[in-house]
């Protein structure tokens, strides 16, 4: 969601006018008052007339040039307004009202100078919340959340008063995986009188990401109690119920979402995931079939159904689905990769390798296919120094270059490095894999082995504890998932989504 920060501009402009009036009044109360009065009344032409006369007498007054800039800006003449502000700054480089005016114009127009002006304001007035807020938004727009967050923090009440700025702040914290802080921000946003449905949704998303599904469910309740709860809300609620171990409610809500939004492919994929988690593969297939009635060209649904067919050992059907997915969406190639995976499931790693190689010939820069190739070769037991080992290594390296967050590819690469005796490299890859996926037991295990072999044992005890804890958590999660199995009721009244 983009953030609109127009309100920030208005606030800034008002401050400028008041400041200028006050500042210049201190110097020449009789000369500036008519200008200020005209500006307050929105009579920008009148203000300009006064200013013209004053400027003839005081051409080097930065204040007058700044006020001219304000008047021109008020008239909508941004280009000349900016020129006026710049002129004021040539006379007095740190003149705050001119800096603020120029910054606002550049900010609104998306000009590259906004950040520079805002930076100069902060040198003069380091704690200026408006400048911080605006810089935060600029950084957010550029995708630089690490830079944005400190500015959001210092934006204080300015940020708090802007719902979109609060959402951007929270979004940035989520991207930086500072989930608890994000929750605090979203909670504040929700407490604002201007809070809307999105604020509640975002808070619930953050709570779910922080593994507090009960909190997420509580947050969503006011929305769920409405008849008009959208499918995205229902889908989020389903995820929260499932994470809370309440699979029956998750399924109920997800079905409701599907009924309300039968063309939403993601909902069927979510259902397939729940079916997979609960070993209820045929139920998942049946729901995907319903989805395909509504969206017969959804590649994702063919992939999802193919994966479920693999679990049912119906490999021919799986292969057909993956081929169809590939044909429908050749760019994504998930179907290709899944086909390779399915071949492996059939106890046929040689066929899996040839399948993956064939797909790679057409899509040589597909990270997932490269990962699969590396993994299959590794599983075959390639020895360091051999051509196949080199190929496995090259594939894995390329996969992680193309997709740095592909943790399984880093796991394979780490294992290959361990085999080759390159323990430092193995440790590096394992750490990166773990950063991408904090539940990656393989990454921690490889890291332990790499550190032991390189003699760097100081961090190992903590890693061993982490691994043991992850194992325990994983066992608990599995036990939770296995509490429920999905079964279909063969009732004539069973609803199916209508296309």
């Amino acid at each position: 969601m983009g953030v609109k920060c127009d309100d920030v501009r208005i606030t800034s402009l008002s401050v400028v006018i008041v400041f200028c009036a006050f500042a210049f009044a201190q110097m020449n109360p009789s000369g500036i008052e008519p200008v200020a009065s005209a500006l307050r009344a929105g009579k920008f032409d009148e203000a300009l007339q006064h200013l013209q006369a004053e400027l003839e007498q005081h051409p080097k007054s930065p204040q007058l040039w700044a006020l001219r800039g304000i008047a021109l800006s008020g008239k909508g003449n941004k280009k000349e307004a900016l020129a006026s502000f710049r002129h004021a700054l040539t006379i007095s480089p740190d003149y705050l009202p001119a800096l603020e005016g120029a910054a606002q114009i550049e900010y609104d127009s998306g000009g590259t100078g906004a950040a520079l002006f805002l930076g100069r304001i902060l040198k003069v007035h380091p704690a200026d919340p408006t400048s911080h807020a605006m810089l935060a938004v600029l950084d957010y727009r550029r995708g630089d959340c690490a830079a944005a967050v400190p500015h959001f923090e210092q934006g204080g009440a300015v940020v708090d008063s802007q719902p979109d700025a609060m959402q951007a702040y929270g979004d940035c914290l989520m991207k930086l995986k500072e989930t608890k802080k994000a929750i605090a921000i979203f909670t504040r946003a929700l407490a604002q009188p201007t809070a809307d449905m999105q604020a509640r949704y975002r808070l619930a998303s953050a709570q779910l990401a922080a593994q507090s599904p009960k909190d997420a469910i509580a947050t969503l309740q006011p929305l769920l109690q409405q008849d008009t709860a959208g499918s995205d809300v229902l889908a989020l609620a389903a995820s929260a119920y499932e994470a809370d171990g309440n699979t029956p409610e998750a399924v109920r809500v997800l079905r409701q979402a599907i009924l309300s939004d039968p063309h939403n492919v993601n909902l069927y994929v979510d259902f397939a995931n729940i079916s997979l988690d609960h070993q209820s593969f045929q139920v998942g297939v049946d729901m995907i079939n319903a989805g395909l009635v509504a969206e017969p060209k959804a590649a994702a649904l063919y992939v999802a159904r193919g994966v479920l067919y693999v679990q049912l050992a119906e490999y021919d059907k799986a292969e057909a689905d993956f081929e169809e997915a590939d044909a429908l969406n050749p760019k994504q190639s998930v179907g290709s990769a899944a086909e390779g995976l399915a071949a492996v499931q059939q106890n046929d790693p040689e066929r899996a390798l040839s399948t993956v190689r064939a797909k790679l010939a057409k899509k040589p820069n597909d990270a997932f296919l490269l990962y699969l190739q590396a993994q299959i070769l590794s599983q075959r037991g390639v020895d360091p120094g051999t051509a196949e080992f080199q190929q496995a290594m090259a594939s894995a390296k390329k996969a992680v270059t193309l997709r740095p967050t592909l943790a399984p590819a880093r796991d394979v690469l780490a294992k290959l490095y361990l085999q080759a005796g390159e323990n430092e490299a193995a440790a590096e890859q394992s750490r990166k894999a773990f950063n991408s996926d904090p539940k990656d037991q393989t990454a921690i295990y490889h890291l332990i082995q790499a550190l032991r072999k390189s003699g760097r044992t100081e961090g190992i005890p903590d890693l061993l504890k982490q691994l043991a804890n992850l194992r325990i958590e994983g066992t608990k999660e599995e036990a939770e998932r296995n509490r429920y199995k999905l079964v279909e009721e063969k009732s004539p009244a069973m609803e199916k989504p209508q296309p």
Partner: protein
Amino acid sequence: MTLSRRGFMRLSLGSAAFAATPKLLGQGVATHTVKPVARPAPSGRPFYARFVDVASSAGLQAPVIYGGIESKKYILEATGCGCAFIDYDNDGWMDLFLLSGTRLTGDPPGATNRLYKNNRDGTFTDITEKAGLKDVGWASGVCIGDYNNDGLEDIFCTYFGRNRLYRNNGDGTFTDVSKAAGLWSDQVRWGAGCSFLDYDRDGHLDLFVSNYVRFSFEHAPVPGENVNCNWKGVPVECGPRGLPTGKHSLYHNNGDGTFTDVSQKAGIAGATGSYGMTVVAADLDEDGWTDIFVACDSTPSLLFMNNHDGTFREEGVLRGVALSDDGMEQAGMGVGVGDYDLDGHLDLFKTHFAEDANGLYRNDGKGNFDDVTRSSRLAVDTRYICWGAGIVDLDNDGYPDLFMVTGSVYPEVERKLPQYANKTPRAVFRNLGNRTFEELGEEAGPGVAEAHCSRGCAFGDFDNDGDIDILIVNLNEPPSLLRNDIKHKQNWIKVKLEGVKSNRSAIGARVLALYGGKVQAQAVLSQSSFYSCNDSRLHFGLGDSSAVDIEVYWPNGLREHFKNLAANRLITLREGLGISPNKGWERT
């Protein structure tokens, strides 16, 4: 709307072969799965060992009763038991000891552990009752050792119930001294693997016992009751997942015929969370002190490293021997110990469940292990559930091979899914000499190809002809006794150790054989394979070498070197006293 990669990964990798986390797939065992890799082309090299099952003609006709035949209600009926080669009467001929179970419906006639005396002519006589060893119950593992240093091998058996220590009286009889020795448990426990060992080097054999599961009939779930009670969609006996893990015990030998439970003090009791099975006690890091490895089912295996002060530290995960090479749990049952790559260090071979490769772990000499399963080409076959195993030179070519027995735990599955047979063949992987193996089938003889539901197996030379024979427990069938008929004779040597300052059985001793530019390590063990005990005479195939140097690292620290020993004989070495006369080696 396209399926995001994150969504696909979650969707497909959760159950795929490459899952980063194990998926239970609704069953009670760990499901680390490995797809079999393509078999390399056959080497074409002849294999001269040939195994024939002579059990029946040898007089081993009584079945090993163990639980239901067509189906098993509880996991207790499925895990089975071990066997042992033991020279109980010190006549130089290996006698046989086979454990047994019972049935849920009551003890059937003939259900008992059995001691068979070697008649030295290829046959055996059942002397169980006369020896005072008749006992019926759910026996699990056996470990052999002279706990009181009187020169006679004693027997310790683990049970679901209460473990037993049988003292060898020296007159052909045994006495159950469990209570007197302080080894009688007040509570019912499920003893699994065991090993005598001298962990504190005081010359007396202490005792380690692993426990599998805390089980009770009253509380155990039944087939189909929950997801841990299903396999491939068929309701089966439950577990071990979902059942509480057992607690392992270490007993210190007080030197007066009694033992003291030092589990807590020694740091053993802290290792909870694993379903313990076979126990191996050996000096794996070659620091002169015995360590303890426990193969564990569906949980990380355990490696207790000796701190030299009466305590241990558990380092299985750290040393690379607890989990798969991807850090995943496996179903670890049996353990073979030997030196497959002839680098003078003791490697481990652990047997696993079907659809997973058995694990070969190469020791770097300091007790750190690398999983070399794939590079050694062992992952070509993942069809069977494997149990007893050994790293043993079957053809005397000087390169230790791998042998394992197999058998299902779910006899009922075969009726619905015929591809998962209850009785399955043995497996032989011959060592090609380049750190890889080649699976053999019928080349190794009919005894290997025959299908049984097997569990423990012990390696020894029952006919004293200079090769390795194999005794195998078959559930609800008579045992197998695979006699090795080597066609092309190659050289060998057997080493029997007698401790003097060290424990009499020399358990924990490490022996290196140097021959033809090679060095092979073996250890005197009280238990290995699955719940079983091998012939205490260490057998080294020497290939073409007609002489061998032997280095002995005695348990109490003495090191001795014997040079240029002639091949094709048994030598008995007494600690500090050199070569001693053999006991009854010559065939009659």
